[in-house]
């Protein structure tokens, strides 16, 4: 086969992207993690344990659902939904946190630090820490704490300590900065559970591999149902972990087109968006070289999206590589369009999607119309929308008053 894909290289580079741009104090920890990860992934007992938790705790495999009503509504390709929203804690995030928590134990560490934006990764981390009896500190921007009060309470119920971050704009980027500072200070006994395909090598690879269960199951399930590969797969992108998990198993299947959907907030012609691929340029942030939203002097800019989970000014190094190589096509969806997607899936299928996933739904609806009826799209429905309904209610009421 001519299209063998073997990223990253030995030093964690995906072409020019990725790498390990971290303070020297962390180099030992990231190298230790790399070794622990490599040995774990060839250790049958580790893999069996991981599989046990994915099956009996997370609830995998989850369905690949043929969305017949949504398909009729779109009027084109058949639409399948990969139901990551049915996982324990309601999103794909736990596929990664359970894996990394088991790695933490394997490395002999009993403490965990993580960042969170909307709180999904924070809740998924606090959950596995409760399960495995690990100490857990979660950094969260003060603005996000205000917006996602209930998730803060959830994390605390689960035994985590939530630290408010007031630096910068008090959102996800600042929470990552503070979590990194905490990790530097407590690196000897603490593991950082990175929530997306971001950060220094080996994090983007580890998170991708733990999330690849999404694409692997999709492939197998579609083979059973339709006897073939999908023509297109679609996933939303903030840092890009659910998308990487969906795409990775299909990269060598040339006939499968792949679409990553960024959040363009109020629009890419405004300064309120999170479209790092569409509007950004290459730079270094949080340990990795990737596409970023930045100004001419190299200062990182704030991202904006209705969906807190997509509200990050960068996108993982492997996505950056796949953009340049042309293997994945990156598109964007505005807040308004995402809300339309949200309403559409809710009304036609009785499934309330997360606002993040609503971006993928909205784009897939456009895409389906351009495809033939015997073609197939698989969408990663990365999370459920329960966490977003209060925010959406507020927005609808506000707009109703106008």
């Amino acid at each position, binding site marked *: 086969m001519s299209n063998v894909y073997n990223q990253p290289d030995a030093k964690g580079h995906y072409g020019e992207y990725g790498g390990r741009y*971290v303070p*020297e104090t962390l180099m*030992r920890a990231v190298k230790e993690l790399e070794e622990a990860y490599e040995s774990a992934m060839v250790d049958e007992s580790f893999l069996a344990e991981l599989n046990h938790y994915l099956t009996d705790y997370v609830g995998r495999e989850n369905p690949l659902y043929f969305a017949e009503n949504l398909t009729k509504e779109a009027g084109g390709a058949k639409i399948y939904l990969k139901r990551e929203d049915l996982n324990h804690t309601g999103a794909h995030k736990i596929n990664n946190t359970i894996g990394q928590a088991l790695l933490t134990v394997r490395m002999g560490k009993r403490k965990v630090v993580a960042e969170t934006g909307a709180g999904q990764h924070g809740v998924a981390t606090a959950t596995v820490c409760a399960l495995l009896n690990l100490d857990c500190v979660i950094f969260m921007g003060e603005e996000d704490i205000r917006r996602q009060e209930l998730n803060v309470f959830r994390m605390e119920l689960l035994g985590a300590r939530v630290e408010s971050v007031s630096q910068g704009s008090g959102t996800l980027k600042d929470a990552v900065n503070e979590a990194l500072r905490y990790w530097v200070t407590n690196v000897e006994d603490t593991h950082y559970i990175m929530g997306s395909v971001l950060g220094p090598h080996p994090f983007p690879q580890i998170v991708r591999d733990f999330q690849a269960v999404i694409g692997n199951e999709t492939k197998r399930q579609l083979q059973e149902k339709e006897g073939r590969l999908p023509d297109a797969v679609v996933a939303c992108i903030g840092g890009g972990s659910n998308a990487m998990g969906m795409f990775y198993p299909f990269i060598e299947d040339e006939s499968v087109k792949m679409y990553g959907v960024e959040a363009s907030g109020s629009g890419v012609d405004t300064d309120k968006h999170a479209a790092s691929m569409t509007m950004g340029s290459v730079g*270094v*942030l949080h340990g990795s*070289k990737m596409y970023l939203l930045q100004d001419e002097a*190299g200062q*990182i800019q704030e991202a904006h999206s209705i969906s807190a989970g997509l509200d990050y000014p960068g996108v993982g190094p492997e996505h950056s590589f796949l953009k340049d190589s042309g293997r994945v096509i990156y598109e964007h969806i505005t807040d308004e369009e995402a809300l339309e997607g949200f309403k559409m899936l809710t009304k036609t299928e009785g499934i309330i999607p997360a606002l993040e996933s609503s971006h993928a739904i909205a784009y897939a609806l456009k895409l389906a119309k351009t495809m033939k009826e015997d073609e197939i799209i698989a969408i990663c429905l990365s999370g459920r929308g329960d966490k977003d309904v209060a925010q959406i209610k507020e927005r609808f009421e506000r707009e109703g008053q106008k």
Partner: protein
Amino acid sequence: MTKYKMAATFARVKEEDKKVFTAYIMAGDGGLHTLKETILLLEDAGVTVVELGIPFSDPVADGPVIQEAGKRALAEKVTLQGVLAELASFKDDISIPVVIMTYANPVFKLGAETFADQCAAAGVSGVIIPDVPIEEETEFKESLTKHDIALIRFVTLTSSDERIDETVDGAEGFIYAVTVNGITGARAGFAGDLSAHLARITEKSPVPVLAGFGVSSKEQAETLGTACDGVIVGSKIVSLLHEGRGHEIKELVPGKIGVK
């Protein structure tokens, strides 16, 4: 000024029976127009090297004092290019070596080659990029080497013996020995085995070893100086300057070794 000139300065300090005292300041904190005046003040205070920090939106290696100083500088619209241009305008009026401390992204955005050219034009002796470990050095180092500007490396408490060997092999300018696991900012004390750690690095290193992170008093500077070639003081100096107490900086600088 090049890394050779900085080496000459280090040699002179040694001859005078003193230790190196490096002062970190945030470029543009208080406005870029104050930069020359501040550097001259440091020269008068007996400082050996100025480490000139470039403000960055996401300074993950820095504690609250330097974060705040960076924010003030960013509010003044200070950029890497702006700092180097300002420095170039008065480089002949200062005699103290200047080392630029910047995170990787502003350098990457400017372009490593342009950055090195502008550093050379500004008379810079060395560059510190705290989020660039040896593994990622190449793209920055090549053009700096062309201009004889040192790319300074870090050794930390988490560095194994093997890593220390790897780091000192080919080290330029000086070794930045990080004295704590953590970020910049004043601390009351250090781990007991720190002196042994510093002495071990100093024994191996072909260039001077300077201890930094958390150094905030003359006593700490004197104590750490006994185990290596000198210290780097940051947050304390940034605070003094911000509070208009720059004249007190000279009180932090130790005199001749063994002389109180």
